[in-house]
């Protein structure tokens, strides 16, 4: 059974993203997908979705969504809150890392993201059509998402009708715990294009995220990294999200999810997969430091991230939203009245 969500307000640069578009990099199609796959997985876990089910990635201002047909549930994954406005005017605040159920006619206004990026997941996942195996939006080639672009007022998002108890919501009291400390990298593939001093500066000095920041990459500002005699250009070779290119001006560029598949600048290092998601949360002005690790350390970091996520998922609890009868309490404590919700018919007292 399908349901439909209408975009009442599109928010700022909100796009549909999933686990990415694998298998087409040999013809120049970027990977794309969620900037922070672990956070997408956490948002999806609140709904019982698959970890990389398609959801809305919200970098700044959130969208306003209305259930048009069918009952749907949304999850707020990130430092963001929502306001659920019932079709009859009731209002319910939805905190971060909580789910909320929208009956047909209900609307949720999702506010600004306080820190980093957020994911708004939908029960069953956003079911826009797959393009080249993915629903991820890649705007430069108009692939995936809604017509290959950011959400706009009036868009319709197909999704599954909620399967389960519409009065039972889910939450986690805490945000998922992430690694802190420096961003971990593996040096190369072209670390030999840099002087020893440049390598020491790269690993020792802080860099700042500039305003040149989008889903393709972020330019950093800091001590200029001097190229060795091998120079500041290479014959273009493969790149990947996390690769750190350094053009002639010596200021690093960290590539992100929508980066192209090849590049002609030397790459001093590449961010390990476990720390890739952390990059997606950095905003202009943020300080960033790098530390070099081995492949073995990178694998352990990836395992640690997976274990932290599993622990967080284990901490998800169900709850009855305010104003909803808790049936167990009703029958157990012989409560005699209650309201399902402000906009639902009053439940008559039971004598």
């Amino acid at each position, binding site marked *: 059974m399908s349901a439909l969500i209408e975009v009442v307000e599109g928010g700022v640069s909100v796009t549909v993203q999933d686990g990415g578009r694998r298998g087409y990099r040999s013809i*120049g199609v970027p990977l794309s997908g969620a900037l922070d796959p672990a956070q997408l997985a956490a948002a999806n876990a609140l709904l019982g979705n698959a970890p990389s089910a398609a959801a809305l990635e919200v970098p700044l201002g959130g969208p306003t969504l209305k259930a048009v047909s069918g009952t749907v549930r949304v999850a707020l994954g990130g430092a963001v809150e929502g306001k659920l406005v019932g079709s009859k005017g009731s209002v319910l605040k939805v905190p971060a890392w909580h789910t909320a159920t929208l009956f047909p006619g209900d609307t949720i206004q999702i506010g600004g993201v306080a820190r980093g990026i957020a994911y708004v997941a939908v029960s069953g996942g956003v079911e826009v059509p797959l393009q080249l195996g993915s629903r991820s939006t890649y705007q430069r080639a108009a692939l995936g998402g809604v017509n290959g672009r950011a959400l706009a007022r009036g868009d319709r998002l197909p999704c599954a009708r909620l399967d389960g108890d519409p009065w039972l919501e889910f939450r986690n009291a805490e945000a998922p715990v992430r690694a802190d400390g420096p961003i971990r990298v593996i040096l190369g593939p072209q670390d030999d294009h840099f002087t020893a001093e440049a390598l020491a500066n790269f690993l020792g000095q802080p860099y700042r995220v500039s305003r040149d920041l989008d889903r393709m990459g972020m330019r950093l500002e800091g001590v200029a990294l001097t190229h060795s005699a091998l120079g500041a250009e290479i014959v273009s070779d493969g790149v990947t999200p996390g690769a750190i290119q350094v053009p002639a001006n010596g200021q690093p560029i960290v590539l992100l999810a929508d980066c192209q598949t090849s590049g002609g600048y030397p790459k001093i290092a590449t961010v390990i997969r476990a720390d890739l998601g952390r990059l997606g949360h950095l905003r202009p002005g943020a300080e960033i430091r790098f530390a070099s690790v081995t492949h073995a350390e990178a694998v352990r970091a990836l395992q640690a991230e997976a274990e932290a996520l599993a622990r967080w998922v284990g901490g998800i609890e169900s709850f009855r939203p305010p104003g909803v009868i808790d049936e167990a309490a009703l029958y157990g404590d012989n409560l005699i009245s209650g309201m399902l919700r402000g906009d639902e018919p009053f439940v008559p007292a039971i004598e």
Partner: protein
Amino acid sequence: MTAHSCHSIHSRPRLLPLGDSAWTVEFGDDITPETHARVLGFAAALAAAQRDGTLDRSLECVPAFRSLTVHFDPATLDHAALAERLLAIAGDSGSRRASGATWRIPVCFDSEFAPDLEVVAASKWLTPEEVLRLMTGTEFTVYMLGFLPGFPYLGGLPEALDMPRLATPRKVVPARSIAIAGRTCAAYPWQSPGGWRLMGRTPVPLFDPARSERPALLAPGDRVFWQAIDRDTYAALEARCARGDFDPAELLAGEATA
């Protein structure tokens, strides 16, 4: 393109880490048919190993001018064992001549579509007609795709047309523009900023996600001839493509033998 005996044929491939999720195997540091033939040989050997099940099918292999990058999932594959396997395959995959399809792709060279053609001609002491003859008389080889979905880098541009990129890139290069820089030719599937010199435009889409078996028109190893068409033919073909009434197979000049 035939594989000639030269130093790069016998040099040992280098293995470079691209983070914890990819290895790049490098066969040289130049853009030449010889180095590229080794990339194609390696790509073919990897594809064969994936087909016969001796190499993990989840690997994504991305060929470039002088190297090939293999993307993998470090959570399920051991990086060191994979590295060893890749070097073993690269060690005896040898060279392979470009053996893809041969295409005759219509291009309109009218000045409206070729804003840089006259400057290129004047800079190289050629007439526009001589430039056109060089563009249409050359067999180009697709070295790699990158930059944008379906964007081909084509080798084989005659030295007489070797020009650097524009000092100031254009903010907007129209989709389907044919362009040159250095000894390389390219085609922009999408509107984009770009610094290459625009020599013409094709009415044929270079990328169509609806063709899920082969969304990019061109593949590494393909050969391409540009075929000059006039403005009316361009308009008619563009309209056919827009209607979905065009099969790219019409442009095939026949499959080459390996």
